[in-house]
Protein backbone atom coordinates (compact mmCIF):
# COMPACT_ATOMS: atom_id res chain seq x y z
CA UNK A 1 0.00 0.00 0.00
CA UNK A 2 1.43 3.37 -0.97
CA UNK A 3 -0.06 6.79 -0.31
CA UNK A 4 -1.74 8.69 -3.13
CA UNK A 5 0.80 10.83 -5.05
CA UNK A 6 1.41 14.20 -3.47
CA UNK A 7 0.30 16.35 -6.39
CA UNK A 8 -1.71 19.52 -5.87
CA UNK A 9 -5.02 19.27 -7.72
CA UNK A 10 -6.43 22.12 -9.75
CA UNK A 11 -9.94 21.42 -8.50
CA UNK A 12 -11.00 19.42 -5.49
CA UNK A 13 -14.52 18.47 -4.44
CA UNK A 14 -15.14 16.67 -1.20
CA UNK A 15 -18.45 15.20 -0.14
CA UNK A 16 -18.59 14.48 3.57
CA UNK A 17 -19.19 11.03 5.04
CA UNK A 18 -22.60 9.44 5.27
CA UNK A 19 -23.90 7.37 8.16
CA UNK A 20 -24.75 3.67 7.82
CA UNK A 21 -28.46 4.24 8.06
CA UNK A 22 -31.77 3.03 6.73
CA UNK A 23 -35.11 4.66 7.19
CA UNK A 24 -38.69 3.54 7.39
CA UNK A 25 -41.19 6.13 6.22
CA UNK A 26 -44.78 5.54 7.29
CA UNK A 27 -47.70 6.60 5.12
CA UNK A 28 -48.47 9.46 7.49
CA UNK A 29 -44.97 10.79 7.04
CA UNK A 30 -43.43 9.60 10.28
CA UNK A 31 -39.83 8.54 9.74
CA UNK A 32 -37.90 6.07 11.85
CA UNK A 33 -34.20 5.74 11.17
CA UNK A 34 -31.99 2.85 12.16
CA UNK A 35 -28.24 3.21 12.53
CA UNK A 36 -26.01 0.29 11.65
CA UNK A 37 -22.70 1.53 12.97
CA UNK A 38 -20.95 4.05 15.17
CA UNK A 39 -18.76 5.58 12.46
CA UNK A 40 -19.51 7.36 9.21
CA UNK A 41 -17.81 6.52 5.96
CA UNK A 42 -18.01 6.87 2.19
CA UNK A 43 -16.36 10.24 1.74
CA UNK A 44 -16.24 11.15 -1.94
CA UNK A 45 -13.27 13.09 -3.25
CA UNK A 46 -13.12 14.30 -6.85
CA UNK A 47 -9.75 15.56 -7.99
CA UNK A 48 -8.93 17.29 -11.25
CA UNK A 49 -5.30 17.77 -12.22
CA UNK A 50 -5.19 20.16 -15.16
CA UNK A 51 -2.22 20.32 -17.50
CA UNK A 52 0.13 18.19 -15.46
CA UNK A 53 3.38 16.83 -16.79
CA UNK A 54 3.93 13.26 -17.90
CA UNK A 55 6.01 12.67 -14.80
CA UNK A 56 2.97 13.36 -12.63
CA UNK A 57 0.68 11.36 -14.91
CA UNK A 58 3.00 8.40 -14.48
CA UNK A 59 2.78 8.80 -10.69
CA UNK A 60 -0.99 8.49 -10.84
CA UNK A 61 -0.80 5.73 -13.48
CA UNK A 62 1.54 3.64 -11.33
CA UNK A 63 -0.47 4.25 -8.21
CA UNK A 64 -3.70 3.13 -9.89
CA UNK A 65 -2.07 0.02 -11.39
CA UNK A 66 -0.40 -0.97 -8.14
CA UNK A 67 -2.04 -4.29 -7.22
CA UNK A 68 -1.43 -3.69 -3.54
CA UNK A 69 -3.34 -0.39 -3.65
CA UNK A 70 -6.19 -2.07 -5.47
CA UNK A 71 -6.33 -4.88 -2.96
CA UNK A 72 -5.69 -3.13 0.33
CA UNK A 73 -6.76 0.43 -0.49
CA UNK A 74 -4.56 3.36 0.44
CA UNK A 75 -4.23 6.56 2.41
CA UNK A 76 -3.95 10.20 1.40
CA UNK A 77 -1.06 12.32 2.56
CA UNK A 78 -1.89 14.67 5.39
CA UNK A 79 1.62 15.81 6.17
CA UNK A 80 1.19 19.50 7.16
CA UNK A 81 4.62 20.25 5.71
CA UNK A 82 3.21 19.47 2.26
CA UNK A 83 0.46 22.03 2.43
CA UNK A 84 -0.34 24.81 2.12
CA UNK A 85 3.04 26.54 2.18
CA UNK A 86 4.75 24.05 -0.07
CA UNK A 87 1.78 24.10 -2.40
CA UNK A 88 1.91 20.35 -2.65
CA UNK A 89 -0.30 17.47 -1.67
CA UNK A 90 -3.88 16.45 -2.25
CA UNK A 91 -5.05 19.07 0.22
CA UNK A 92 -2.83 21.89 -0.94
CA UNK A 93 -4.28 25.26 -0.01
CA UNK A 94 -6.32 23.83 2.83
CA UNK A 95 -5.22 24.76 6.33
CA UNK A 96 -3.85 21.92 8.42
CA UNK A 97 -6.58 22.48 11.01
CA UNK A 98 -9.16 21.60 8.37
CA UNK A 99 -7.24 18.91 6.49
CA UNK A 100 -6.41 17.16 9.78
CA UNK A 101 -10.13 16.48 10.22
CA UNK A 102 -9.84 14.17 7.24
CA UNK A 103 -6.82 12.39 8.65
CA UNK A 104 -8.88 9.52 10.02
CA UNK A 105 -7.16 6.27 10.87
CA UNK A 106 -10.32 4.24 10.25
CA UNK A 107 -10.73 5.50 6.67
CA UNK A 108 -9.08 3.92 3.63
CA UNK A 109 -9.36 5.32 0.13
CA UNK A 110 -10.22 3.53 -3.07
CA UNK A 111 -10.80 4.44 -6.71
CA UNK A 112 -14.51 4.84 -7.48
CA UNK A 113 -13.76 4.52 -11.18
CA UNK A 114 -10.64 4.36 -13.36
CA UNK A 115 -8.95 7.76 -13.69
CA UNK A 116 -9.37 9.66 -16.97
CA UNK A 117 -6.39 11.06 -18.81
CA UNK A 118 -7.18 13.72 -21.35
CA UNK A 119 -4.39 15.08 -23.53
CA UNK A 120 -4.59 18.84 -23.41
CA UNK A 121 -1.35 19.97 -24.92
CA UNK A 122 1.82 18.36 -26.07
CA UNK A 123 3.18 16.34 -23.11
CA UNK A 124 0.57 17.90 -20.82
CA UNK A 125 -2.55 16.12 -19.67
CA UNK A 126 -5.63 16.68 -17.58
CA UNK A 127 -6.32 13.79 -15.20
CA UNK A 128 -9.60 13.23 -13.37
CA UNK A 129 -9.61 11.00 -10.30
CA UNK A 130 -12.59 9.99 -8.20
CA UNK A 131 -11.87 8.49 -4.78
CA UNK A 132 -14.02 7.09 -2.03
CA UNK A 133 -13.02 7.00 1.63
CA UNK A 134 -14.45 3.84 3.14
CA UNK A 135 -14.41 2.42 6.62
CA UNK A 136 -11.37 0.23 7.03
CA UNK A 137 -12.24 -3.46 7.32
CA UNK A 138 -10.09 -6.45 6.59
CA UNK A 139 -11.01 -9.98 7.54
Amino acid at each position, binding site marked *: MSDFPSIAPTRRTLRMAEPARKEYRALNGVV*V*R*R*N*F*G*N*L*MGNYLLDLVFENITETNVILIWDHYHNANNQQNRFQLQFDPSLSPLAGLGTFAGMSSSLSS*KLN*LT*YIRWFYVEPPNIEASERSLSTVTVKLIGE*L*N*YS*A
Partner: protein
Amino acid sequence: MINIVNMANIQAYPQPGLVGPTLGFALQNFFQGETYEGHRFASFSVQGASSQLNGENETLALLFPFSSFALTLVESGNGNKLSSLTLKTRWVETNSTSPSPSSADYLTMSEYTSYYIGVGASYSETTIELRFKSAMDGVNGVFPAGTFTRRNSGQLPTNSRINFK
Protein backbone atom coordinates in the same frame (compact mmCIF):
# COMPACT_ATOMS: atom_id res chain seq x y z
CA MET B 1 -32.81 7.22 15.84
CA ILE B 2 -32.45 3.57 16.73
CA ASN B 3 -29.02 1.99 17.15
CA ILE B 4 -29.06 -1.79 17.15
CA VAL B 5 -26.05 -3.97 17.90
CA ASN B 6 -26.20 -7.62 16.89
CA MET B 7 -23.93 -9.77 19.03
CA ALA B 8 -23.46 -13.31 17.78
CA ASN B 9 -21.81 -16.14 19.69
CA ILE B 10 -21.24 -19.04 17.33
CA GLN B 11 -20.00 -22.38 18.57
CA ALA B 12 -18.70 -24.61 15.78
CA TYR B 13 -18.53 -28.24 16.85
CA PRO B 14 -16.24 -30.79 15.21
CA GLN B 15 -17.75 -33.56 13.12
CA PRO B 16 -18.68 -36.61 15.24
CA GLY B 17 -15.93 -39.19 15.14
CA LEU B 18 -13.28 -36.63 14.32
CA VAL B 19 -10.97 -35.20 16.88
CA GLY B 20 -11.01 -31.46 16.81
CA PRO B 21 -11.56 -28.45 18.98
CA THR B 22 -14.88 -26.72 19.43
CA LEU B 23 -14.32 -23.26 18.05
CA GLY B 24 -16.07 -20.24 19.42
CA PHE B 25 -16.64 -16.96 17.59
CA ALA B 26 -17.93 -13.90 19.42
CA LEU B 27 -18.82 -11.16 16.95
CA GLN B 28 -20.62 -7.82 16.88
CA ASN B 29 -21.54 -5.71 13.87
CA PHE B 30 -21.90 -2.13 15.14
CA PHE B 31 -18.67 -0.78 16.62
CA GLN B 32 -16.24 -0.59 13.72
CA GLY B 33 -12.89 -2.20 14.50
CA GLU B 34 -13.58 -2.55 18.22
CA THR B 35 -13.87 -5.48 20.55
CA TYR B 36 -17.11 -4.81 22.40
CA GLU B 37 -17.71 -6.86 25.54
CA GLY B 38 -15.49 -9.62 24.20
CA HIS B 39 -17.10 -9.54 20.75
CA ARG B 40 -14.84 -8.70 17.81
CA PHE B 41 -16.14 -6.52 15.01
CA ALA B 42 -17.34 -8.39 11.94
CA SER B 43 -19.38 -7.08 9.07
CA PHE B 44 -22.54 -9.18 9.13
CA SER B 45 -26.26 -8.65 9.04
CA VAL B 46 -29.14 -10.63 10.49
CA GLN B 47 -32.21 -11.52 8.47
CA GLY B 48 -35.20 -13.73 9.04
CA ALA B 49 -37.78 -14.73 11.58
CA SER B 50 -37.11 -15.30 15.24
CA SER B 51 -40.18 -17.19 16.38
CA GLN B 52 -43.66 -18.29 15.43
CA LEU B 53 -46.77 -18.82 17.50
CA ASN B 54 -46.89 -22.59 16.97
CA GLY B 55 -43.29 -23.03 17.98
CA GLU B 56 -42.18 -24.11 14.54
CA ASN B 57 -38.59 -23.68 13.65
CA GLU B 58 -37.99 -20.54 11.67
CA THR B 59 -34.96 -19.82 9.55
CA LEU B 60 -32.65 -16.99 10.45
CA ALA B 61 -29.69 -16.06 8.28
CA LEU B 62 -26.44 -14.36 9.12
CA LEU B 63 -25.01 -12.69 6.04
CA PHE B 64 -21.25 -12.24 5.89
CA PRO B 65 -19.14 -10.76 3.11
CA PHE B 66 -17.24 -13.41 1.19
CA SER B 67 -14.01 -13.34 3.17
CA SER B 68 -11.47 -15.85 4.43
CA PHE B 69 -12.81 -15.30 7.93
CA ALA B 70 -16.37 -16.21 6.94
CA LEU B 71 -15.12 -19.28 5.09
CA THR B 72 -13.34 -20.44 8.24
CA LEU B 73 -16.52 -19.88 10.18
CA VAL B 74 -18.50 -22.10 7.83
CA GLU B 75 -15.97 -24.87 7.41
CA SER B 76 -15.10 -25.20 11.08
CA GLY B 77 -18.76 -25.95 11.78
CA ASN B 78 -18.88 -28.64 9.09
CA GLY B 79 -20.73 -26.42 6.64
CA ASN B 80 -22.59 -24.75 9.51
CA LYS B 81 -24.46 -27.98 10.17
CA LEU B 82 -22.81 -28.48 13.53
CA SER B 83 -23.03 -24.98 14.96
CA SER B 84 -25.05 -23.22 17.55
CA LEU B 85 -25.78 -19.52 17.72
CA THR B 86 -26.65 -17.27 20.61
CA LEU B 87 -27.84 -13.99 19.18
CA LYS B 88 -28.12 -10.94 21.37
CA THR B 89 -29.92 -7.92 19.94
CA ARG B 90 -29.05 -4.78 21.86
CA TRP B 91 -30.48 -1.29 21.58
CA VAL B 92 -27.89 1.37 22.44
CA GLU B 93 -27.98 5.17 22.66
CA THR B 94 -25.39 7.92 22.81
CA ASN B 95 -25.24 11.61 23.62
CA SER B 96 -21.66 11.93 22.40
CA THR B 97 -20.70 14.90 20.25
CA SER B 98 -17.60 13.12 18.98
CA PRO B 99 -17.35 12.51 15.22
CA SER B 100 -16.05 9.02 15.98
CA PRO B 101 -17.74 7.81 19.15
CA SER B 102 -16.53 4.54 20.61
CA SER B 103 -18.50 1.82 22.37
CA ALA B 104 -17.69 3.51 25.70
CA ASP B 105 -19.87 6.43 24.58
CA TYR B 106 -22.96 4.24 24.21
CA LEU B 107 -25.45 3.15 26.87
CA THR B 108 -27.46 -0.04 26.67
CA MET B 109 -31.19 0.64 26.70
CA SER B 110 -32.51 -2.90 26.32
CA GLU B 111 -31.60 -6.27 24.86
CA TYR B 112 -32.98 -9.70 24.18
CA THR B 113 -31.35 -13.03 23.44
CA SER B 114 -32.34 -15.85 21.09
CA TYR B 115 -30.85 -19.30 20.54
CA TYR B 116 -30.44 -21.12 17.23
CA ILE B 117 -28.80 -24.19 15.73
CA GLY B 118 -27.01 -24.33 12.40
CA VAL B 119 -28.72 -25.96 9.44
CA GLY B 120 -26.31 -25.15 6.62
CA ALA B 121 -24.77 -22.40 4.60
CA SER B 122 -24.86 -21.05 1.07
CA TYR B 123 -22.50 -18.98 -1.04
CA SER B 124 -22.78 -16.28 -3.63
CA GLU B 125 -20.15 -14.18 -5.40
CA THR B 126 -20.07 -11.63 -2.63
CA THR B 127 -21.71 -13.12 0.45
CA ILE B 128 -21.77 -16.19 2.63
CA GLU B 129 -25.06 -16.97 4.28
CA LEU B 130 -25.14 -18.99 7.47
CA ARG B 131 -28.59 -20.44 8.05
CA PHE B 132 -29.91 -21.22 11.49
CA LYS B 133 -33.16 -22.45 12.96
CA SER B 134 -34.58 -21.69 16.33
CA ALA B 135 -33.47 -24.15 18.98
CA MET B 136 -35.70 -26.86 20.38
CA ASP B 137 -37.35 -24.67 22.96
CA GLY B 138 -40.29 -24.12 20.64
CA VAL B 139 -42.71 -26.95 21.48
CA ASN B 140 -46.39 -27.28 20.69
CA GLY B 141 -48.84 -29.93 21.82
CA VAL B 142 -47.23 -33.18 20.74
CA PHE B 143 -44.21 -32.55 18.62
CA PRO B 144 -40.86 -31.14 19.63
CA ALA B 145 -39.82 -28.58 17.07
CA GLY B 146 -36.37 -29.96 16.61
CA THR B 147 -34.12 -30.41 13.65
CA PHE B 148 -32.53 -33.74 12.89
CA THR B 149 -28.84 -33.76 12.46
CA ARG B 150 -26.40 -36.60 12.56
CA ARG B 151 -25.42 -35.31 15.94
CA ASN B 152 -28.74 -36.01 17.64
CA SER B 153 -30.07 -38.92 15.59
CA GLY B 154 -27.03 -40.78 14.25
CA GLN B 155 -26.85 -42.20 10.74
CA LEU B 156 -30.25 -42.81 9.16
CA PRO B 157 -30.92 -45.00 6.11
CA THR B 158 -32.55 -43.04 3.31
CA ASN B 159 -35.88 -44.91 3.56
CA SER B 160 -36.18 -45.05 7.30
CA ARG B 161 -39.37 -44.44 9.22
CA ILE B 162 -39.56 -42.95 12.66
CA ASN B 163 -42.47 -43.13 15.06
CA PHE B 164 -42.77 -40.64 17.84
CA LYS B 165 -44.56 -41.57 21.03
